[in-house]
């Protein structure tokens, strides 16, 4: 398939505002522009917060994705992502 991408990571969080909704492990993002799917294993979660919107996925290196639709089956979370990737902060210092 042309123009596809897959990214994987060990840790991530699902958040509702500043509040942690779920701790995630072994995540991956796959798909193509406009149709990204996030998949992860849920380690622990707050049922109320997971049911709220908007939600975001945040990785330890600062990648942030807004969640579109979300499904949970057992301990597997699958979400469509809204294109909105940005790092928390990028420090640029003059050399």
């Amino acid at each position, binding site marked *: 398939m042309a123009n596809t991408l897959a990214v994987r990571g060990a840790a991530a969080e699902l958040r509702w505002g*500043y509040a942690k909704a779920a701790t995630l492990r072994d995540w991956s993002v796959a798909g193509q522009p406009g149709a990204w799917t996030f998949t992860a294993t849920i380690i622990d979660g707050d049922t109320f917060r997971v049911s709220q919107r908007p939600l975001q996925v945040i990785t330890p290196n600062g990648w942030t994705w807004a969640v579109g639709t979300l499904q949970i089956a057992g301990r597997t979370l699958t979400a469509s992502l809204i294109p909105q990737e940005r790092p928390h902060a990028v420090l640029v210092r003059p050399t």
Partner: protein
Amino acid sequence: MPSWFVRPETVRLPLSDGQWILVKQRLNTGEHRAHLARCSVVGSDGRRRVESLTHGLSLVVAYLLDWSLPDVGIRDASEAALTAALDNLEPDRFVEIREAVAAHELAMEAARETEKNVTGGERPASAISPSPSEPAGALSGSVN
């Protein structure tokens, strides 16, 4: 009708020297209970009392999410790490942060009261009177 749940929204409060803190707009019930548990003790009479010495620190820990201070990052810090960072501040700087958070809490309480009055959110009169034996005021004590 406004939501009965607290949305996890934030407010940035300005400090001196151009610094700022990012705080929770409002505490939810769980966060408020954790705050009271941190800053209170059960006396010999079985009643829980707020400790003035720890109330200010607990209030700041409850609200604070991030700050602009460059030396120590606190975003997503554990309660222990956040407490350690606060304990290493210059005392007058901690007082400035504590007072900013306390003023914010008062402003949010006032806004909440106004919101309830505007939307008619008063509680209906109880059909059953409380028991005379029900203890009044589970918490007592002064706070700083």
